[in-house]
């Protein structure tokens, strides 16, 4: 499934990467992580939620792609039911990971088992003389940008917890021609708690630059209806 290897121009000089407008690698994912800086665009297309990692109990900031585990309502044959693609999807099949010998340095890794990777189709990573192609440079920039946003995202999550703004949500979804089901384990920003925030906490959040992100989260709950519609039209 996933065989991530650090990119190496000697071993990987011939590799080419195909693009997949249906992001088929996420076909089984009902949530994907998003960065706090993406939220204004994410909220226009996807519900945003905070969910707990089952292994650590810590919160992740995610966009919902489906309402049930393994259900992705955006992925479709040859395309995607939205104009905005979060960077997590765009960066596939690449990752940034700490280098084996120098953990403070990061290297670009690639999932060699992905069927987007071949020596025949798509964008080349290296030129014939072993130089990075502009495509790989762009990939590296995108990975670095995503990585640089992790701390800010974590800070946003922690601030929401510390100011007690999250509350657990459970939804009952009744698709048109199907049995109803419950969606649990989601946490969202509680609008009334946010409105009751005292002035000093409110100012602190404003100064941290999180107001746009908070409103994005609040507005994004409207997108649940879109997911229910997609469920109905399946």
């Amino acid at each position, binding site marked *: 499934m996933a065989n991530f290897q650090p990119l190496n121009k000697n071993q990987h000089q011939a590799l080419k990467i195909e693009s997949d407008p249906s992001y088929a690698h996420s076909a089984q994912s009902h949530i994907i992580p998003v960065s706090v800086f993406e939220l204004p665009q994410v909220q226009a297309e996807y519900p945003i939620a905070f969910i*707990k*990692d*089952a*292994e*650590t*109990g*810590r*919160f992740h900031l995610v966009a919902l792609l489906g309402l049930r585990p393994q259900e992705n309502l955006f992925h479709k044959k040859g395309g995607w039911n939205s104009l905005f693609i979060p960077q997590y999807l765009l960066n596939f099949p690449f990752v940034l990971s700490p280098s084996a010998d120098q953990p403070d340095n990061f290297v670009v890794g690639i999932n060699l088992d992905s069927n987007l990777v071949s020596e025949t189709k798509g964008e080349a990573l290296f030129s014939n003389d072993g130089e990075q192609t502009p495509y790989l440079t762009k990939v590296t920039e995108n990975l670095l940008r995503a990585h640089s946003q992790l701390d800010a995202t974590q800070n946003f999550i922690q601030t929401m*917890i510390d100011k*007690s703004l*999250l*509350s*657990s949500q459970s939804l009952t979804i009744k698709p048109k021609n199907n049995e109803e089901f419950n969606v649990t384990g989601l*946490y969202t920003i509680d609008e009334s708690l946010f409105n009751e925030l005292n002035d000093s906490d409110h100012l602190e959040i404003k100064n941290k630059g999180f107001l746009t992100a908070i409103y994005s989260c609040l507005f994004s709950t409207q997108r649940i209806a879109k997911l229910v519609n997609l469920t109905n039209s399946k």
Partner: protein
Amino acid sequence: MNDGMINQVVIVGGGTAGWLTAAKLAKYLSSNKSESVQVTLVESPDIPTVGVGEGTWPTMRKTLADLDIAEHDFINYCNASFKQATKFVNWRTPAQNGQDSVYYHLFSSIVNADEFNLSPYWSLSDKQIDYANFASPQAVICEGGFAPKTIANRGYDGLLNYAYHLDAGKFADFLKKISCERFGVKHLAANVISTNLNASGEISSIETKELGRIEGDFFVDCTGTRCLLLGEALGIEFTPINDILFTDNAIAMQVPYQNEDDAISSSTISTAHAAGWTWDIGLSNRRGTGYVYCSDFVSHDQAEQTLRDYIGPQAEQLSARRIKIASGYRKKFWEKNCVAIGMSAAFVEPLEASAIFLIEASANMLCELFPRNKKQLGAVEKKFNDSFEYRWKRTIDFIKLHYFLSHRKEDFWLENKSASSVPDSLLEQLDNWKYRPVSRYDFQNTFEPFIQDSYQYVLHGMGYVQELGYNASTFNQHHTVESILKKNEKLKQHLQNNLPTNRELLTKVKAFGFQKI
């Protein structure tokens, strides 16, 4: 002070009782504000705490949450682990052909007995499964070494009800730090020499070796069995109960885990022996074990050998510590402007971990009824004494129940069944329960220490024979029972598939902590 206001509380003695009372009282009374009641705790720098009370009740979760303590901070500091039950081994009968007799007193039932009582349906069943497994999903969870929750549950929330095993010394330290840093408790290290009374016989001050006189308006005696204030200064006598509960000594040993990944038990394991019983409490870093026994029936050397045999070859390198115990309670717990909390108030053998629970309960009542004005003292004194005399007596009854129902034949156990040693209140209840199920109407006091569920786990676990067959038609809710039992079986599966082991969860708690939501 002159106008009858109580502004200065002096707690004498640290330990679990002193520091838990200090933390609760100072938090409740806002002692970090100068206009509020000030709380001072005077602790002897020389007298070590007893520190073997290592089991709590589920009430401890509320106690800690109310003190604004993050659950993982407490767990990590105090090497605490999750406790879901007491597992009673060989209490009903001694092991036969190497086969232990085992039953569980659990903290969770599939349905609370005061809502719907499964007990008569079990009594009338073929008893293919034991009562604990019939009435709760928790016995299989304990037996499998599982935790009561996952790392994704928030602090103090559980999928099953739970309490803690903890290092009592560390716990007192932890509460000391929090009391002084957050709640404004003043900590003084000094040895008490004597106590001064005023004209109306109230305590006015204590004299200390290091700091001279320390005055106060109200005193809490947490001096342990010495009972310096309530007993020595105010002359309140001790009522021994060694005619009911015979154990008079304990020998304790701390046992390290042999491997880093050894299982940590989710139950306190209480194993009966010839002249008493051993406790076995798994903390995150070691086990605490001990043998509580009656020296009329076994020598101290034999008792130590029993404990060493129980622990096994590992005990060879370990040293043991003997503690003399005296079960009983003070004729009054509150006298004038002094209340005793902890071992100064009463002591019963730690079979059902009631010690820390009754400290919590005493401190709660003191907080809520705190007499800010001396005029209130008399009324609170009476209420407190009535309440705790009741609670201690019920606790004694409940402990005695375990001995009384045993089928063991050693002298110590036979003596425990002698009619003269059993309180009438207990005999009366048992008479009732012979012909009808235990009922919520048997537990009418709001502050009943042991609830209906607890009694039923012990009665059925010990094999108490109830004759309900003559009245079987009364127990006609078969559909309800069937659906509860189905739910119970489903939950057993679900929990076994989803819960981590006690050790796995404790490792995660160290690494990640619990979220507060």
